C-alpha cells in the first residue's frame, strides 16, 4: 500500500461512499454547536420534520454573545438574549447536551471541546465556525461549516465533500526564547498568504511543532483558516495522548488501550506525497505583530511598517494603501514605537491556561501603562478561569490593572458588549484583524499573549523577551 498522509488516513477512515462525480459522503463523528450559526439549522430540521441522526454526537455551548461581566444579571442586549435562549430551547427540545451560560464548563466552543475530551484523535469534527480547524491539533480532521451544513450534520452525521489537496508546512529546528506558537503561525501566514492554503488541508510538522504543548498546537491549527485552509492538523504523539487521558468524554478502561493503539496510526507515513510543501527554520522566526487588515500583513517586532510603493502587484498595493489608511499608520514607522489603547487577551486562539500563564509571567509585578485605556483578560472557559484563579493568576492581572472576565468570545469579534471604539488601537491575542472586526473603526494588531501583556505594561509594542529578562518586581514595580 502506498504511503499516506495524515489527512489521507483521516479521510479514508471516514468515507461512507464515493460518488460518481468525485465527491464523497464523509462521516462526521462530532459536531460542536454554538448560538450564532445554529438557530436556522434547528428551524430547518423542524420544517422538514427531521430528527438528529444521533443526538450524542453533538455538544453545545453559547460563546459568541455571552456577557463577560455580571453573569448573574443575564444578557442585557435583548437580541443576544433571544439567540442564547434559542440555543437553550433547541438543545432542550432535541435532547442535545449543552453547557449553559451558568455552567462552570461553559466557554468558547473550541476551548471546551478539547477540555472535555469531546475532541479526540482520529475523528472528524465540524462546527458552524471557521476556527474549527483548532481541533486538528489532535490529529483530527476538523473544519468549519455553514449553517446549512450544521443542519446536514444534525440530520445525517454526514457531509458531501470533495477531498482537498495535501500541504505540508514543516517548521524545523528550535524557537528562540520568547518566540511562541502564535508567532510561528503568523509568520507562516505572512509567507504563504491568506489564500495560500485555499483548497488544501495543511499538516503542520517539524521539530518546532512537535516541541509545542497541546495549547500551542491548538494556536497553530486554529489559524490554519487564516491561511485559507479549512483544516489544519498535527500528527498524534505522546503529547496528544497525555493531554486526552482522563478527560470527561475520553475513552476509559479497556477502550482507552484500544483507542491509544488506534490513534498512534494518525501520522503521515514516511515518503507520503504532498501537493505542496513549505519549510521554515524556527530559529529565524521573530515575535510577530500584524500591521494591517489581513493576517498576512505581519512583521517582526524589530521591523518597520512596509511601504506600498515597494509592492509591484497592483491589487496588493491598493490593499496595502487601504490598510494603512484604515489602521492610521505610515509606512516606515518602527512597529515597536506604536502606542496601544486597548489590550485584549483571549479568544479561541489564545485563552487557554498556558496563555494565561505566559501573559501573567510578563505582567507580574508591573502595572498597565497610563495610556492604555482598557486591558482585558477573558479566559476560554469556566474551568480555565477556575484553574487560573487557583494559581493566583487573576490576582496578578487585577493588581496590574487588568479586568478579569467571564469566559466567551468577547472582543475577538465584539458580538457582546466588549468592543473597540472607532480609532482605538488594540494589541489582541485573537485571530482576525479585519476592518471593524473588534468594533467599527477599531484597529487590531494580532500578537501572542506575552506580546499583548508586554504592550499593556509598557503602553506600546515591544519584544516581550526584553521584559522577561527582568521581572517587574525587581524594578520596584515600575513600568519598564
Amino acid at each position, binding site marked *: 500500500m502506498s504511503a499516506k498522509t495524515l489527512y489521507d488516513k483521516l479521510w479514508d477512515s471516514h468515507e461512507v461512499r464515493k460518488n460518481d*462525480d468525485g465527491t464523497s459522503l464523509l462521516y462526521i463523528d462530532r459536531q460542536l454547536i454554538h448560538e450564532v450559526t445554529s438557530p436556522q439549522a434547528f428551524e430547518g430540521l423542524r420544517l*422538514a420534520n427531521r430528527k438528529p441522526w444521533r443526538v450524542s454526537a453533538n455538544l453545545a455551548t453559547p460563546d459568541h454573545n455571552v456577557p463577560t461581566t455580571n453573569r448573574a444579571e443575564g444578557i442585557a442586549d435583548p437580541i443576544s438574549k433571544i*439567540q442564547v435562549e434559542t440555543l437553550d430551547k433547541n438543545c432542550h427540545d432535541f435532547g442535545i447536551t449543552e453547557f449553559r451560560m451558568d455552567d462552570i464548563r461553559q466557554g468558547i466552543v473550541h476551548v471546551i471541546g478539547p477540555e472535555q475530551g469531546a475532541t479526540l484523535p482520529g475523528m472528524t469534527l465540524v462546527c458552524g465556525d471557521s476556527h474549527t480547524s483548532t481541533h486538528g491539533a489532535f490529529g483530527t480532521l476538523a473544519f*468549519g461549516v455553514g449553517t446549512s451544513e450544521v443542519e446536514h450534520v444534525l440530520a445525517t452525521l454526514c457531509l458531501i465533500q470533495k477531498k482537498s489537496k495535501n500541504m505540508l508546512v514543516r517548521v524545523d529546528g528550535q524557537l528562540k526564547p520568547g518566540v511562541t506558537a502564535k508567532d510561528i503561525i503568523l509568520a507562516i501566514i505572512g509567507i504563504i498568504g491568506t*489564500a495560500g492554503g485555499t483548497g488544501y488541508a495543511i499538516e503542520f510538522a517539524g521539530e518546532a511543532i512537535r516541541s509545542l504543548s497541546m495549547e500551542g498546537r491548538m494556536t497553530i491549527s486554529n489559524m490554519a483558516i487564516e491561511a485559507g485552509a479549512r483544516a489544519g492538523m498535527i500528527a498524534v504523539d505522546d503529547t496528544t495522548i497525555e493531554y486526552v487521558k482522563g478527560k470527561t468524554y475520553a475513552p476509559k478502561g479497556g477502550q482507552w488501550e484500544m483507542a491509544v493503539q488506534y490513534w498512534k496510526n494518525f501520522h503521515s507515513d514516511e515518503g507520503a506525497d504532498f501537493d505542496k510543501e513549505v519549510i521554515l527554520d524556527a530559529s529565524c522566526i521573530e515575535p510577530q505583530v500584524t500591521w494591517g487588515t489581513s493576517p498576512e500583513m505581519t512583521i517582526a517586532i524589530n521591523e518597520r511598517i512596509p511601504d506600498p510603493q515597494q509592492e509591484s502587484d497592483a491589487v496588493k498595493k491598493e490593499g496595502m494603501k487601504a490598510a494603512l489608511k484604515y489602521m492610521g499608520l505610515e509606512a516606515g514607522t518602527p512597529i515597536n514605537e506604536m502606542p496601544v489603547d486597548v489590550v485584549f487577551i483571549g479568544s479561541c486562539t489564545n485563552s487557554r491556561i498556558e496563555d494565561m500563564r505566559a501573559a501573567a509571567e510578563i505582567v507580574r509585578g508591573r502595572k498597565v501603562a497610563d495610556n492604555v485605556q482598557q486591558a482585558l483578560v477573558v479566559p476560554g472557559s469556566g474551568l480555565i478561569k477556575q484553574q487560573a484563579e487557583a494559581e493566583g493568576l487573576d490576582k496578578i492581572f487585577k493588581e496590574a490593572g487588568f479586568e478579569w472576565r467571564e469566559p466567551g468570545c468577547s472582543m475577538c469579534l465584539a458580538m457582546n458588549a466588549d468592543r473597540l471604539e472607532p480609532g482605538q488601537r488594540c494589541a489582541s491575542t485573537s485571530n482576525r484583524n479585519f476592518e471593524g472586526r473588534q468594533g*467599527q473603526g477599531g484597529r487590531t494588531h494580532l500578537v501572542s499573549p506575552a506580546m499583548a501583556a508586554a504592550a499593556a505594561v509598557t503602553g506600546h509594542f515591544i519584544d516581550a523577551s526584553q521584559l522577561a529578562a527582568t521581572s517587574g518586581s525587581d524594578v520596584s514595580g515600575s513600568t519598564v
Partner: protein
Amino acid sequence: MEKFTKLSAIAVPLDRANVDTDAIIPKQFLKSIKRSGFGPNLFDEWRYLDHGEPGMDNSNRPLNPDFVLNQPRYQGAQILLAWDNFGCGSSREHAPWALEDYGIRVIIAPSFADIFYNNCFKNGLLPIVLPEEIVDELFKLVEANEGLKLTVDLEQKTITADTGLKINFELDEFRRHCLLEGLDEIGLTLAHADEICQYEEKQKKITPWLFNE
C-alpha cells in the same frame, strides 16, 4: 433552495481583494435567528456613513456615495465582480444570505475562500471562478458600458453580453446539477441512509468509544 438556470442582469464591480465575511455582513447582524432580512445590511460598514445596528430603519440612514453599490448606475445589480479570495474569514452563512437577500445571484472572482464558496451553493448563489485577466476584462467592460447586462447561463456554462462577449466557465458537475434542479442535499444524503448505518456498524467495532452514549 431556489433554482439557478439563467440570469441577465447588471454587474457591479467591487474593486477589492480579500473581501471578508465580516465586511459582507458585520457581526451585530448575526444575532438574528432568521435566514432572511440581511440584504439591507449587506456591506453595512462600507455602504452607510453611520454605525448600523439591528432593528434600525435602514431607509433613513446616510449612504456612502463613494461605495460602488450606492451608485445609481449599479442599482438592481444581481451580479457581483470582485478580486481574489472573496468571502474569506468567518464561516457565517449570513454572508450568502445577505447577498441573496440583496438580490445578488452570481459572484465572479479569480478565487473564493473555501467555506464561503461552499455556502453559496446551499443558497442558490452561483460563484464563478475565472482567470484574473478575464475578471479584469469584465471589470473594464462593465465600467465602460453603463447599463450593460451580462447573461449567465448555467446550462451552457457561459457568460455573454451584447458587446459580443462570450466566456466559458467551469463548475463541478454535482454542484451544477444541484443548482439547476434546486435540490435538497440532506434529502440526497438520506437516500444513502442504509450505507451510513453499515458504516456505523463497521466503525462500532473499530472505534467503539465514539459511539458511547
